[in-house]
């Protein structure tokens, strides 16, 4: 492709998709890692095959903290991938065979497919219980992308340097050294390089089977021995499918190989026999078609992720505004919207105008995955339930199964530890953050001062009374939090809200005077008036929002009974 401007529309499309349509996806990936600018961090990555690709991918993903920059970084990456394909197409002299425009679009289209749709796989049933725990397991951690991309500049250099070698009839011996190096840097995606070299070899007329056989045996030898000698504590499958290609190390989703395989199919299309050529073109096209699972696209999971992003950025009004238009019917969504309402002091007023999933609509039980409890962790933190926030944040971070830290959660943990007076532990987390790009400034300030306004706020709000946490009595815990500090009006709103969600009308009515006395409301909030009307009419007052909630809960309970 001579005119490189042809990539511009793709680049713009990629940028638009990431920045305008799905910025939350970038946010999600960014909050599941903590990239450190230290030699140790790089060395740790390079200690395993595919480490350089891993390091580059994390380096790029860190920019997603600033959405426009993250979108730009990923767009550059995707465009490089298209260019890499183009380079191979050029090498294989395919210009007269196929429409290159569509060829180079393959990887980009596939990539966007993977990015846009596959991410949402685990989220495809938003009506089921909260956020499915397997959400993260289906997420691709961008690893193969730089792995594929990295081949391009490398191959270009090698090409110019080793032209003579390549021109020889049997050039495969040159890979004896190059393949292991490439394997160590980018992982098993290097197999694509090996496959393309074989195709290239055949395309140039090489036919001696013994060379090909030796080549294949050598590759197998390298992979098996690398595993046996250098990373035996990993399963053997990791040597062939990648160590950190997926956030769940033991998973090797087929989609990881979609891009490399399509490139390979395209390359095979230059096979001299005409029929075979069309066969491979068809296979490449088919693989593209198979990999377009847009029919499964469900916007709700993305909406929840978007709420998570907005809550993280404390854009409370936007959370509420979006929920007014559409709210996914999940517990997480209820929690995010309720938190936004509470932060804007609208919870008492408007809670039941929005979807409420049940007694877990304010605070959820502990779950073992890296997302479901994020809303609860945020709520605990803003309420001032420091130990609970610390627990949920720690467990969320520990649930990132590839053992990466989270900048978002590390920051929360450090602040909670400081508020608890655990300076030594907090400093440990802050030192970690001080090596990152976007968390450094605050971390360094806290390392210097030992506190900031946020720490003081948390210390003001926290419990004064020792007790053991009990989710079954979360309403009482919220009540005590408020009693310990009557200025904590958010705790009061949560307390009364929890009583309503639980259907504990007696306690709600008993504690309603607190709302008038301490809540700072000039008049009784409309939401509480609505609830009182429902309670006084024994649920028979028509059109009451709380009444509708109670009916829905009762109906759900009856459905669940049989």
């Amino acid at each position, binding site marked *: 492709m001579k005119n490189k401007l042809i990539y511009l529309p793709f680049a713009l499309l990629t940028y638009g998709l990431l920045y305008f349509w799905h910025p939350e996806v970038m946010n999600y990936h960014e909050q599941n890692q903590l990239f450190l600018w230290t030699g140790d961090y790089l060395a740790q990555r390079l200690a395993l095959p595919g480490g350089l690709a891993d390091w580059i991918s994390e380096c790029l993903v860190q920019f997603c903290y600033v959405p426009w920059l993250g979108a730009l970084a990923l767009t550059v990456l995707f465009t490089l991938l298209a260019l890499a394909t183009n380079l191979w197409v050029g090498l294989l002299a395919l210009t007269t065979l196929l429409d290159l425009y569509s060829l180079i679009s393959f990887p980009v289209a596939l990539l966007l497919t993977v990015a846009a749709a596959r991410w949402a796989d685990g989220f495809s049933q938003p009506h089921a219980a909260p956020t499915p725990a397997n959400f993260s397991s289906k997420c691709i951690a961008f690893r193969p992308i730089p792995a594929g991309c990295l081949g391009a500049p490398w191959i270009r250099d090698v090409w110019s340097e080793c032209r003579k070698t390549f021109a020889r009839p049997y050039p495969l011996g040159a890979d004896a050294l190059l393949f292991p190096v490439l394997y160590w840097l980018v992982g098993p995606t290097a197999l694509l390089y090996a496959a393309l070299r074989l195709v290239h070899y055949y395309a140039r007329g090489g036919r001696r089977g013994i060379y090909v056989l030796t080549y294949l045996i050598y590759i197998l030898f390298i992979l098996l021995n690398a595993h046996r000698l250098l990373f035996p*504590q990993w399963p053997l499958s990791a040597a062939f499918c990648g160590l950190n290609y997926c956030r769940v190390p033991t998973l090797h989703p087929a989609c990881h190989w979609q891009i490399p395989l399509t490139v390979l199919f395209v390359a095979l299309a230059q096979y001299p026999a005409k029929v075979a050529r069309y066969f491979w073109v068809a296979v490449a096209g088919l693989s593209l078609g198979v990999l377009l699972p847009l029919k499964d696209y469900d916007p709700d999971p993305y909406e929840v992720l978007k709420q998570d992003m907005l809550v993280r950025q404390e854009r409370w009004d936007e959370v509420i505004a979006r929920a007014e238009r559409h709210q996914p019917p999940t517990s997480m969504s209820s929690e995010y919207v309720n938190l936004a309402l509470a932060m804007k002091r609208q919870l008492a007023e408007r809670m039941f105008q929005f979807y409420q999933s049940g007694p877990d609509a304010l605070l959820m039980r502990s779950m073992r995955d890296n997302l479901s409890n994020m809303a609860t962790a945020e709520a605990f933190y803003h309420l001032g339930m420091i*130990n609970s926030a610390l627990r949920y944040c*720690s*467990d969320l971070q520990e*649930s990132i199964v590839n053992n990466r830290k989270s900048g978002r959660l590390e920051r929360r943990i450090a602040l909670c530890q400081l508020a608890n007076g*655990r300076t*030594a*532990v907090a400093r*440990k987390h802050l030192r970690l953050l001080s090596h990152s790009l976007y968390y450094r400034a605050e971390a360094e300030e806290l390392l210097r001062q030992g506190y900031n306004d946020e720490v003081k706020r948390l210390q003001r709000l926290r419990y004064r009374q*020792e007790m053991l946490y009990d989710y079954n009595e979360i309403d009482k815990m919220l009540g005590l939090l408020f009693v310990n500090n009557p200025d904590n009006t958010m705790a009061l709103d949560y307390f009364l809200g929890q009583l309503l969600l639980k259907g504990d009308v007696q306690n709600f009515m008993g504690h309603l005077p607190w709302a008038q006395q301490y809540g700072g409301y000039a008049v009784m909030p409309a939401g509480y008036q609505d609830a009182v009307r429902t309670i006084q009419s024994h649920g028979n007052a028509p059109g009451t929002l709380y009444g509708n909630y109670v009916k829905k809960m009762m109906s759900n309970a009856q459905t669940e009974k049989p």
Partner: protein
Amino acid sequence: MKLKLRTRDLGRGLALVATLAVVCALFFTSGTPDLRRVRPVDALPPMYPDYTDVTIPCNLAPLNFLLRDSAREVALRVDGRFLATSHGARLTIPLSRWRKFTAEHRGDTLQVEVFARHADGWRAYRSFTWMVSPDSIDPYLTYRLIEPDYEVWNNLQIEQRSLADFSTKQLADYHLQQNRCMNCHIPQGASARRSMLYVRGEGGGAVLNEEGRLRKLALTADSLVSGSVYFSFSPGGRWVVFSSNVIIPGFHTHPDRRLEVFDTRSDVYVADLQERVIHVWPQLADSTQLETFPVFAADGRGIYFCSAPRDSLRSHLLHGLKYALLHVDFDEATGQIARQVDTVYAGEKSVCHPRVSPDGRFLVYTVADYGTFPIWHPEADLSLLHLDTGVRDSLPQVNAPFSDTYHSWSSNGRWMVFASKRDDGLYGKPYFTHIDKEGRATKPLLLPQRYPEYYDHTLKSFNIPELVDAELPFDAVDVQRAMQREAETFTLKRE
């Protein structure tokens, strides 16, 4: 073009190389201070780990340390001779030099001086002593690496570390165990010939190492309280006494407290590894009591364990849950236990993790204000009981303000390793203390690392440290293979 090498060019090249070598030497090597110009400082060096006034096993790896100040160079002088110098605040001692030094000074108490160069010149900190103990420590340490979080664990590893240097070996690794929980690698009396660890979860079991042959055991039965948790081998190796516990986590709201892990039910059982029978004795499995932490006496003639009334679970915030230390006679030949259970110690505090010294003279246990999980109790301390006299020693020279618990003895009985959170209150690290024939303990020293900053950076706790007298004859791959087998089942026998 043919390259002609002329003598003049060669001379220039050599001069350049020599200059570079001199520059590098000046830049990368550090010097010793001119003692006439050193400024004395009336304070101990701010060294981390704190290796001042410690007793060092003669076969331990070098005590690398760093100074927690703005030192630009550090020099270490021992017994009047400079042992090591460094650029920057970190001082690492070459392994060969350290080995020679410890070999030469076995049994000596040495004067140690630390010098540091700051912006204003060299400073000499107050000197301290190192006692190089002639008692060697077992050459290997095993432990579990885990992040001290709450309910979620991830990426667990059981590791073996050579104490003579810094090399490690994975004994069980999460990559090969589907990220399941793994715990409690415990040898039989610090012997590498027999040990056992657990892999939890679906398809899990106990992996028993018998001189390198791994057996997978289902050390449980339907009517047991739960799976096996704490265990101990009899000296002969035929018997295993273990507890089965229903463990519940509780979460504090107080800033100084974090977790409260307690048992709602627990009993102690004796398993015969030879006949594959689990014996249930009413003395050890009383439903009104919570029995746990069983351990064999050094001679195998008794079992020590802890017990608390189950009623105490109802006490306010579990503050009344206090375990006593009990003893029951055991016959290793027949596997019979006596009817009579004796109370060894029952006090104001709760007793956990009793461990008897190999010579049978001392019993070290952890005391906490209450409860059964001292690792989360900042006040938890070690205590030593002289079994022959009944005298209790609260080990003030060993304990620190944060949790000191989970200890094990070396095979010669002169060293003890324990997990202490003294640095920051959260991350457990292995400390060693020397215990002489009279039961006197020395100031503990932290397991040295190749780079002492390791402890600043790691987010893992060293859990269940155990000393082992030789390299363990298996690794993580062997454990993975063992886990793929069918587990050997046990039958239950009520006595």
